[in-house]
């Protein structure tokens, strides 16, 4: 077996297992740690696909930014209260029906489109220095083809940031 395939299955198992652990842990900090593991696994898959830039950004943004913020929130929430509450409701029938429906739907479309799934041909490892860098490609696409969505997204973030500043700002006279 190729090294690539072995790594792919390792990452896949890591992602699935950690995602499962994320939603089943009672302690919210444990959930956060498993979520980090999931996101690292996704970054690993990106790396395998030759999207190094995405992998780096995935780790920096998700794991660096969001998880640090996440941990902020966690530390301010008393854990003992949180872990006593039940995480799962008992609406077993609704869940079962929805799951069966979704699985059927997904299975049907997979079966319909089975032809388009092909086992990837292993590509020979590229010579060092010959690859066009992934970051350049992303930059070019972002600033030509997807310029409008890109700018819209940044305006959205700016609005959110200004909103946060306004909300956090102490109002004169308000106690």
């Amino acid at each position, binding site marked *: 077996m190729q090294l690539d395939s072995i790594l792919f299955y390792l990452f896949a198992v890591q992602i699935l297992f950690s995602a499962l652990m994320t939603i089943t842990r009672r302690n919210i*900090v444990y959930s956060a740690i498993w979520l980090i593991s999931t996101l690292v696994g996704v970054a690993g898959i990106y790396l395998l696909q030759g999207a190094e830039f995405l992998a780096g950004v995935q780790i920096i943004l998700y794991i*660096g930014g969001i998880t640090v913020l996440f941990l902020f929130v966690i530390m301010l929430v008393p854990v003992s209260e949180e872990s006593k509450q039940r995480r799962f409701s008992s609406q077993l029938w609704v869940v079962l029906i929805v799951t069966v429906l979704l699985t059927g739907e997904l299975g049907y479309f997979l079966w319909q489109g089975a032809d388009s799934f092909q086992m990837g041909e292993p590509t020979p490892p590229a010579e060092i220095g010959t690859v066009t860098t992934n970051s350049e490609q992303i930059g070019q696409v972002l600033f030509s083809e997807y310029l409008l969505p890109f700018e819209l997204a940044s305006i959205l973030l700016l609005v959110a940031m200004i909103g946060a500043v306004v909300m956090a700002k102490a109002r004169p006279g308000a106690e």
Partner: protein
Amino acid sequence: MEEILDNPYLQPIIATLLIIAVFPLVAGYMVLAERKVLADLQVRLGPMRVGPYGFLQPLADAFKLMLKEDIIPAASDKWIFWGAPVLSTFTALTAFSVMPFSDKFYVADVNIGILFILAMSSLGILGLILGGWSSNSKYSLLGALRSAAQMVSYEVPLGFTTVTALMVAETLSMQGIVQSQLDKGVWIAFSNYGLMLVPAVVFFIAAVAETNRAPFDLPEAESEIVAGFHTEYSGFRWALFFLAEYASIFVICGIAVTVFFGGWLRPFANVGFLETPLNVVFPILLFVVIGAGCALGAARVTLAYEKAIMGVLALGMFLVAGLFAIPMINELIIGFFWFLFKVLIFIYVFIWVRGTFPRFRYDQLMQVGWKYLIPISMGGLIVNGIVLLFTS
């Protein structure tokens, strides 16, 4: 045999093993250097007992830490308490894998080198936070929260200044950044009509904060919160945190050197007539002077084994000086020499800063980060971008 030698993974594996094997020792001697320099700044002698002039102190410290009882607080979260120092050390050492020690000695040259290092350092923060949280102690939690807030604040100017430098270098690969400085014939810190000096200085300040060093060492401020996030740690786990801290200092100095100060290039890399004075005479002189210092030390100490150690050190230094005189070997190690030389200068400045400035108060820390460094770094980015646009 041929097959093994031709394997593309051979050099990375050897380099990785070397780094993992050697770095703990390097970190130990960084600690010794720090204690000696601080002692010098405070007109003391520093460690003098173990070995000549305290030369064997790091070994003694390492043995002490390994033999110490491993105390895990009863109310702590065992798994996270166990894993946090491992995570810190792991990420700090992983960042070495893209460090361009020289044009010939490096583990990997990936085209997202600098992003990878930043990613690893942001993962490393989690080690501190989790360690502080899992100790189940007020001081640890306070230290962890402080480090989280501090890292989040200072990552922003660090990122902005790095991006500014990357605009000049036009690549993300660590080797490529050095190569572009060679092509341009000027270190990035001095390029763009000297405008890049501003980001370089901001980067340095943010780097000191990012590594939790004084005057930004609030996460472990002794006078306020005992030892911060590692209050409850002892023995080998504590040593791992320490190793991670020194590894990240080395890494961030390595980034500063690579991105702003020419990596493994010698000063004035394109000026031909400086080739011999800087690449041959300077290292030889440097090591001969150090060797002479060691020889002088050997004459001054009284115990026989201390004389022997100093003598061997002096001989070693002369030997290294001799290596630089052989053209073939010189060519192999000169890049490594310049990289380490610059990194060590930066580490010295880190220690110097620690010995000079008093610790910031918490609100001052936030003020420096958000009100000064971030606007300055953003301004630097825009101004440098405009200048680049009009000159290229």
